[in-house]
């Protein structure tokens, strides 16, 4: 997959969909293309968050530790982003991500990501919009869940 295809993939990630293609290209160029075989771990719960990953092809499982061992809580499909919360909040990883099939991903380093946000406010605003959107959804879900009790 070439740089320009990656830009196309990134455009389909909601977080980046509103950002100019040239900026996305820079983001893609400065990111590392990484590949994993099935079963390999992208990162572990509790690790320090140093990068976000955009899945280009393949699938991955999101696992959370519990007393009875890891539980799969979600699955990642191409065009999804994972790990962005940890690099925005300086927190440690809240879950483990494991490749469920041969996986290609774009690894966006934390410092690059933050630097881009600082330099291109339009990108930051776009990301803010997506996060706010997510928050309002989460809030709505929470209200639903509370009222359903």
């Amino acid at each position, binding site marked *: 997959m070439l*740089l320009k295809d990656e830009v196309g993939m990134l455009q389909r990630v909601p977080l980046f969909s509103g950002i100019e293609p040239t900026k996305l290209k820079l983001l893609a160029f400065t990111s590392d293309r990484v*590949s994993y075989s099935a079963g390999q771990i992208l990162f572990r719960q509790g690790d320090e968050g140093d990068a976000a990953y955009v899945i280009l092809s393949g699938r991955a499982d999101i696992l959370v530790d519990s007393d009875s061992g890891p539980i799969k809580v979600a699955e990642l499909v191409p065009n999804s982003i994972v790990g962005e919360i940890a690099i925005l909040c300086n927190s440690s990883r809240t879950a483990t991500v494991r490749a469920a099939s041969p996986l290609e991903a774009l690894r966006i380093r934390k410092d690059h990501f933050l630097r881009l946000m600082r330099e291109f406010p339009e990108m930051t605003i776009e990301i803010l919009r997506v996060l706010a959107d997510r928050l309002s959804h989460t809030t709505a879900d929470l209200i639903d869940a509370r009222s359903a009790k």
Partner: protein
Amino acid sequence: MEPSLARYIWTHTKKQQLWILMIVVLSMIPYFMSFDLPKLIVNGPIQGKGFEQPGATQPFMRLHYNLPFIGEVQFFSGFQLDRKETLLALSLVFLLLVIINGLFKLYINTYKGRLGERMLRRIRFDLIDRVLRFPPLYFKRVKSAEVATMVKDEVEPLGGFIGDAFLQPVLLGGQALTAMLFIMVQNFWLGMIAVVIVAIQIVLIPRMRRRLIVLGRQRQLTARALSGRVGEIVDGIGAVHVHDTSNYERADIAARLGLIFKIRFDLYQWKFMVKFLNNFLAQLTPFLFYMVGGYLVIQGRLDVGQLVAVIGAYKDLPGPMKELIDWDQDRQDVQVKYQQVVEQFTVEGLIAPTIGAVTIDDPAPMTSPLAAINLSIADDGGAMLLNRISLQIKPGETVALVSTATGGAEALAEAFARLNRPDSGRVASGADDLLELPEAVTGRRMSYASSDVFLFQASLRDNLLYGLKHAPLTTVPYDGAAADQHRWNIDEARRSGNPDLDIHSDWINYASAGATGPHDLFEAVRRVLDAVVLSRDILDLGLRSSADLTRHTELARRIVELRAALRTRLEHEGLSGLVVAFEPGAYNKEATIGQNLLFGAAAGPELADKALAANPYFASILRQAGLDHTLYEMGMEIAEQAIELFADLPPDHQFFQQLAFMSAEEIPAYETLLQRLKNRPHEAVSENDRAMIVALSFAYIEPRHRFGLLSDELMSKIVAARNRFYENLPPELQNAIERYDPAKYIAAATVMDNVLFGRVGTNHPDAPDRIRSIVYDILDELGLYAELLDVGLDFNVGSGGRRLTGGQRQKLDVARALLKRPDFLILNRPLSALDQRVQDKVLRNVLEEARRDGHSPAIVCVVTNPAMAMMFDRVVVFDSGQLVEDGTHETLLAGNGIFKELLS
């Protein structure tokens, strides 16, 4: 040191000075004879005096003397020669005298030059010897660069002067007197004119030069201060940048340079003024000669031959006179310089020479306890660091010194290391004052490591073994020319009062490291490096550096085995995908296009980096392989992409690290280049521009940059070009490149690259770490671990060890202290740059390593954290310069003292 320069010179060069004086006196004879000769030639054969009759002859070389009581005695009646023959003979004698005078001059100059150089060597050595014996406190007040400039520059003129010190006045004075006497003999009044003018010169010129001496002294002091400041700026460059004070430094230096300029300009003005006057006076005399002498000739009271001889002799008078005056100036100048240097090097409390005397045999172990008795130490400002402390450290005991912020435990450790002198009381080893023990005992039976580490600019190995180099232990056999050179070295060293210790001898004291020779020293080195947890760092350095194949032959010999082992291991662990190996007939996708084309490591500048695309042979290969066009297009594409991506970013942006093709500074140049070359056919582009564009393609790696520029056809063309490149490699490039060969070690590449013999895939983020640990495993399995560690030990630590981190430097210092297996190991906050966890680990290892093989040294450690005291037999607590608690860890913990307070 001897305060008077003249006496210093006389004491050390008496014999030589007398010898050269004798030679000089001897040289006066032909010198005087050469004065008389022109008169003989002019008056005799030329003017015909004594040859009035045709066919008259005169005796030549007649030897006859008027001896008292005996009367005229003739030894040789001489040859009878006619006028022309006499002219020829006398001219030949003149030539002979010229040659003899020249040879005398040659001998005298060479002799005194050598004399001066020997004395210079002696002075410099004396000065350094004193630096080595300065009391430790003195170094808090001097700037190293000032000392260096004194030893190097300020005594330099002394060397030139020493040869002339006694010789010049005799030689020049003799010449001047001879010339003067000769003039006097010819004509008294002409002689008197010369005498008067000379007297004016002698009185006036030195008077005018007094100011020159004052200025000269100022020049010396300001120049010395300047070099001190330059040294400070270099050492403190970090602080300058951190505080944005570079302009303050600029202003300071500019002000100093201004002052130096003013002094030097003043000096020039005076110097040329004096020179003018001196020259004028010298030229005044011939004017008087021509006038008065000519008048006398006209009157017939003086013959023409005499006048010519007087003027001829006078030509030789101003020269010596001027030089004599210059000599006097030099003398005063040099005396001032010497005094100023000697003043700086005359220090109270110099360490006695016996303390540092060369001792070949190792001293007996120190079995008596180390003690501080009523010890008080004050700092430079007079504040008490330690106040009447008494403490005894028994052999074999481990003691933690715990100190509050003002406790003073560091001062005690420094006192034990003899780095800090007691103001009252003493430090003792048994009954002996510790300060009076020779360094051969304290430097071998005790060792000291502190947080303030100094490393020399040398390899890690040299720094580590530095603590073992006490004395030359072997006699190096020399033969042939080397033996002559060695004899000469010793001879000259002795003549200049230097020691004749052989630096090429093996100075390493293997026994004290518990080894028997070079072959098993490495074991000891490895153990101490393991103990301070430095081995891994050194292995990493080893992997990243290229090995010196003359020393590390094993690595090169077993490289094939190593590479095979790595492949097998990677396959075995299912990691083959991590490394793409170099294969002579295949394109390596993880390597750059440049690497694929060259398929070798550049061993010289001709084919390295930027020069590659411009190399005519390489360019011709690209043309033949039909690649020039393709790579040019590719370079254009890369330039466009790179500029599109990066043109908006500020040049210091961290993203530029990702851009392998060009640096941030080159972007504007490529931008204009791109505009100019766009749509222009390839043929119309100049060689230079083409090389610039093609060079971009060399850094391209498809899987990393993902521009989609690499096709199968291109790859096979590149492999073909590679083969063509090596087939016709011209002889001048044979040594510029080392071709990758699966069976050969590549000397120009790093150890890691050699073992990998391929490239690590870019798309496995943890690949480098995994591969490194696999490589270590393999090296260990194959028994090459030690070899790699040895490669790492070749690493040059840089000026003051600055290429290492602070923690690494401290670890190295501790390792060095451990290596000599002392009886008393003094550690003064040794690992303060490390975090607490690592400190604990290293300290535990160190305690264990120090006691390996039944050794039981006493260990005194000023700990950075009271919790570390747990590891020691005994804990001594200091507060405000007082010893406040002393006991085992348990007893102190049970009490309710400061220790418990510090711990909580």
